[in-house]
């Protein structure tokens, strides 16, 4: 039994809070001290392994400053020879298990990353912390208890979220269904069975991707309050719960929602779209989801607390560096440019930064560019008295489009999908839009106008994407999300755009809009509106645009 589980069983809530959640009480100075020390430890581990020597170009930094000056920024390409082959002997520490996320279509199917036992221990502690934050109303309160019913709707292992569930406190809570039993089940079957059990046994804690939370809520409301009594007669507990929900929904004169059936103690969500689904989740489940920011490489990097506002950085799992937005742009234009980075105590509020991490505890990533642009919302959480800077996810900064945390589509895969439809097209561009749900918006200019509708084009491209990218196909099968939307551009839209750009004296590189993540202005120009001309060096790209 883990120490955290022991503490729950023994009722030592004070010690449990300190152990798992105590990092929010650290001063910024303490945080930086932890960051520095653990980085120096990690450098020592890196010096002794092949991966470390290769990534650090054989330099041996002795201080944080030397590390930042001498070691170059990296991307997953730098790790491919070691991680895609799972070369354990080249790593700084022996992995406990491997996890992956979707890779780059056409290059490698998955991005693999090892998790060490020390990282695993910290993750376990942080999962307890996230659950505590999602349940509590004040500092120090541990509102969950032993035998609470815990439902999880996360991707199966070795996807990161699925792999991490092994760190969850399964000795303490009643998992729906039990982890062992769920190992061989498909995602859908597992969620289905989990909900059946939750209807029967009750539900206290729910951990899911935000898109899944909404999807499940919608399924409830779509039933429109119709409950077939007959099959439930043999299940009195389920029946009583459903009847209670039915009465509540009828009194409120609306369809039945999950909150009519269960009164959750805690709700934790992952995924970059958390802020989009936040209000809908509250409406459906009766409480805000606690947003956790993580990923395959950084695992858990920040978490919300019980005020459900900004996310607090977790200082003991990764070393954080921040590339200011302008510097990030420069490095995108010039791959050889090494942008300057800031540390956690140097960031400024209301500014965007590209996040760079270095794994602690023997993890493999060194000055790794996650490709995420985050926004520092404030330097401290005034309301809760947390002295660590607060953040929220802002956008992807690379040439990929993340949909609901399930898939990351590249230029190549979208292009291939369009090609496979056999349509005669002039040019295309695509971006992600966030409305009530994430949308992959494809803007396509056909060679011949008028003989095909956007819906027909959309259906063809969707079909091809489903074939080319398995995680994209999972979106529909797992959460019923069909994100593709197509706008057919007028004839000569791209040519007009180029002429405008030429007339404005734009740089050669900016004559055409990029295929992935064009700016709002570019799209307005393509669809026929006025547009400010983009000059070299100006940044007006927003990967995620709320409308």
């Amino acid at each position, binding site marked *: 039994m883990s120490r955290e589980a022991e503490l729950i069983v023994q009722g030592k809530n*004070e010690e449990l809070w300190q152990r798992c959640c105590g990092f929010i009480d650290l001063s910024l100075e*303490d945080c930086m*001290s932890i960051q520095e*020390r653990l980085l120096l430890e990690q450098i020592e581990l890196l010096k002794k392994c092949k991966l470390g020597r290769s990534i650090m170009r054989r330099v041996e930094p002795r201080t944080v400053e030397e590390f930042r000056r001498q070691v170059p920024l990296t991307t997953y390409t730098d790790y491919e020879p070691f991680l895609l082959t799972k070369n354990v002997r080249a790593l700084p520490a022996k992995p406990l298990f491997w996890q992956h996320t979707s890779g780059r279509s056409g290059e490698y199917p998955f991005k693999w990353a090892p998790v060490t036992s*020390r990282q695993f221990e910290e993750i376990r502690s942080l999962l307890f912390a996230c659950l505590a934050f999602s349940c509590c109303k004040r500092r120090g309160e541990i509102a969950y208890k032993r035998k609470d019913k815990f439902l999880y709707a996360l991707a199966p292992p070795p996807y990161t979220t699925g792999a991490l569930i092994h760190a969850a406190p399964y000795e303490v809570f009643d998992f729906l269904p039990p982890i062992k039993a769920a190992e061989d089940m498909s995602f859908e079957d597992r969620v289905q069975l989990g909900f059946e059990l939750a209807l029967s046994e009750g539900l206290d804690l729910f951990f899911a991707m935000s898109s899944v939370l909404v999807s499940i809520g919608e399924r409830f409301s779509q039933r429109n309050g119709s409950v077939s009594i007959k099959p439930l007669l043999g299940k009195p507990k389920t029946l009583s719960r459903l009847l209670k929900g039915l009465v509540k929904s009828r009194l409120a004169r609306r369809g039945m929602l999950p909150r009519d059936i269960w009164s959750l103690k805690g709700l934790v969500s992952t995924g970059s779209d958390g802020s989009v689904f936040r209000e809908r989740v509250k409406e459906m489940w009766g409480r805000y989801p606690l947003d956790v920011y993580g990923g395959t490489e950084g695992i858990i990097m920040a978490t919300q607390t019980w005020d459900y506002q900004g996310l607090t950085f977790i200082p003991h799992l990764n070393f954080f560096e921040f590339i200011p937005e302008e510097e990030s742009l420069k490095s995108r234009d010039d791959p050889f440019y090494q942008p300057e980075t800031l540390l956690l105590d140097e960031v400024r509020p209301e500014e965007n930064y590209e996040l760079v991490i270095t794994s602690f505890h023997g993890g493999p990533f060194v000055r790794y560019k996650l490709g995420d642009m985050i926004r520092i919302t404030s330097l401290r959480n005034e309301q809760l008295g947390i002295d660590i800077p607060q953040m929220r996810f802002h956008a992807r900064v690379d040439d990929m489009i993340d949909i609901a945390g399930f898939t990351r589509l590249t230029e190549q895969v979208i292009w291939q999908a369009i090609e496979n439809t056999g349509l005669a097209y002039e040019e295309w561009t695509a971006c992600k839009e966030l409305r009530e749900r994430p949308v992959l918006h494809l803007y396509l200019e056909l060679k011949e106008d008028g003989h095909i509708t956007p819906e027909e084009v959309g259906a063809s491209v969707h079909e091809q994407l489903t074939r080319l990218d398995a995680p994209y196909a999972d979106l529909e099968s797992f959460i019923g999300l069909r994100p593709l939307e197509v706008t057919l551009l007028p004839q000569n839209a791209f040519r007009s755009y180029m002429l405008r750009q030429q007339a404005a004296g734009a740089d050669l590189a900016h004559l055409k809009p990029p295929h992935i993540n064009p700016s709002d202005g570019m799209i307005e120009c393509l669809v026929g509106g006025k547009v400010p001309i983009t000059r070299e060096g100006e940044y007006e790209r927003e990967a995620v645009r709320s409308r």
Partner: protein
Amino acid sequence: MSIWAVIPLLSFLAFAILAVVVLRQDGRRVNRVFGLFLIASGVWSFTSFMLHFNAYPQQALLWNEILVAALLWTAVSYYHFVRVYNDKPGGIGIYIGYSCVLTILALSLSGYIVKYAYIVNGTLYHSLGFSVYIVGGISAVFLISTALMLINRYRSSFDPTDRNRTIYLIIGSGIVIVSSYICNLTPSIAGLSIDHIGNITNALIITYAIMRYQLLNVRFVAQKVLAYVWLISCLGGIYAGVVFLGQRLLPSQPTYIIVLRTTVLVLILALLARPLSHKIEEWIDRFFHRETYEYRRALLGFSNRMSNIINLDELANEMLTTVTKALHLKQAKLLFQDLSSGDFTVHFAYPEVEGEPSGEIKFSADNPIVTWLHKENEPLHLGPIDSIPKFKGLWEVEKEQIMASNLGLLCPIKNRGRLIGILALGEKESDTLYSHDDLEMAMSMASQAGTIIENAQLYSQALVRANTDGLTELYNHRHFHERLEQEIARGSRFGTTFSLIILDVDLFKAYNDIHGHLAGDEVLRRIALCIKTSIRGLDTAFRYGGEEFAIILPEARLDDAYKVAERIRKTVGLKISSRATPITVSLGIANWPIDGVMKEKIISCADTALYRAKQTGRNRTCLSSDETKPETPVVGVEPEARSRALNIIYALAATVDAKDHYTYGHSKKVSDYAVALAEALGLSQDRIDTIRAAGLLHDIGKVGIPDSTLNKKGTLSDGEWGLIKTHPKLGVEILRHVIDLVSCLPIILHHHEHYDGSGYPSGLKGDNIPLEARILAIADAFDAITSPRPYRAQLSSQQALQELRRCAGTQFDPELVEVFCKVIEPTPSKGLEVK
């Protein structure tokens, strides 16, 4: 009124006051539930009082009926309190318990439990029937559950304060259980209010735990109130007891007389309470807290002894012995900061474990534990260190080190707010956790020791400084003599032997003159390091003086010492010497008692051996006692090769002279003038020989200067001057590889320095210019003036001397000029003939 009624009355009053105090505090749940327990206990005591008071005999049945339910209520509310104290939610047991209380109350009031009840002569007569076992059984379930919960908490807790609080609750529960059941199940004492005594004792114990261990969040003023309640209850108890005894022992006495006398007695007791309290406290301490009493005594003894100790070793020994014995520890250690690294390392341990390296645990200066100890004034438990966020920065190896060290507690030792040491306590012999008193004692000791340790450290550091050479950090000359005497004494006593090596850096003066004193210091530092790394752990190295070092090698025979000496010589050659700057050392060895038994004799023998090493070519090791010992050859330079090199050099010097027929023979003449001046100054033959060679070679650097510049008739341009000025350095570059000529190098390098600092190449001034170079400068100038040059006519000897005098103090050393003039001027027969 029965005397037994007094006990429940007192009990009721105590509970009532306690309940008011507790419920007036903040709204913490645990306080509220404890208040509820106090109310239940108060109701139980009140009903019992009313029953025994028997004011209205017809109401005896009613009070007895309520009493039954109140008894159960007390048990259930105590169970409730302990659950909340354990951070456990209410649970179904609470609901069942309170439901039972209400049910029993209803049944009791309906006459199903108590059949009849009346008081006769202060004794209760009642019939409870079988239902009493039901009430007793339910109460037992709750009381035993309560006790089990407390025992579990005690066993799972690692926090000594928490364990102390819990132990009081356990004792209190035990008393309640025992008193309740003994009283009600033993017919002979049934009705004697023993259960109330048990319950009030429990309340008093809880009150004590509140006051001492902050069992509940009760403010200071409230604690005082509780203290007085405690005192009043004790006095009340005594009062009631005395009255009762009086009634029994003196049945003939009227009750009012007994009450009157008892009141006077208790009043006197109350007046004496304060002075007696200290004595009572001591008895209680000795009886109930034997360990605490022992701690205090140990601490007092430690304090008394500390005032007389200044030596760090003695202090550490005293402190570790005291704390280890008093706390029954397996081991205790003292960590101090290393001056060089800043790390806290183990300096003292008690008891020393054989085979255990004393430095197995260390805390680097930036270790979060050190930071924490520096900021906080309380001991740090190493057990739950994983749970403290501030220690998230600990390295894995540091955590493993802590785990392996078997240490449990670190107490900061501070002086004026600065962390100067760490008292590290190992596990207890009984493998139990530290008690609150353990922590108090360890911290008291650490805080007392702070100033004394710092003084002892300063004293110790001063001692080290007094015996250490500041430059090389080896022991100094003074300490060398002390240690040598100690070694001779040891040898005389135990019949052991030792060797002495004296080491001298070859041609160090020349090195200093060429490269400057800072570079010379660096060489000495590096040689000291080479010596440190080449000798054994029990050998001691000293800076004997200047560029001389000494090494005492206990229990080393001559051949052992020879091996060490050779190792040093080779290490210096490998690590310090380079092609550009050859550094070598010569070593002489003597052995005690083979070469002599007196200190002076042994030094003299080693010196003689060193001298022989110098005389026979340097860079070698010689023994004083064995003249036939083969000498080590000069590394890298064979004698024949050296001779050939010298011949080539002198040929080169002749070539320089030959380059310019105006300067033909210049080097020879300069050499002669310089030697004449050196002899007039009374310099040693060695130095005169060096000056002679330097005179011959002083312009050798001119081989690198184009003839067009050397022989130019017109004024030299700046560039050409620059070229000319490089010739001293060029000369040194040419000659530096010939070890035998190394002593000439500073003379050649600086022979164009001016006395006022305006010369080249280094711009040295006054006496900073080597004496030999000043001599050569005069000789060089004199010959130049008196020789023909392409750019001016030859001057006479007198004109040249006048010119020298004119430039004395600016270009030349005025004192040397005067001597030189005397050498040249007096009579042509005695002086040198100017050709």
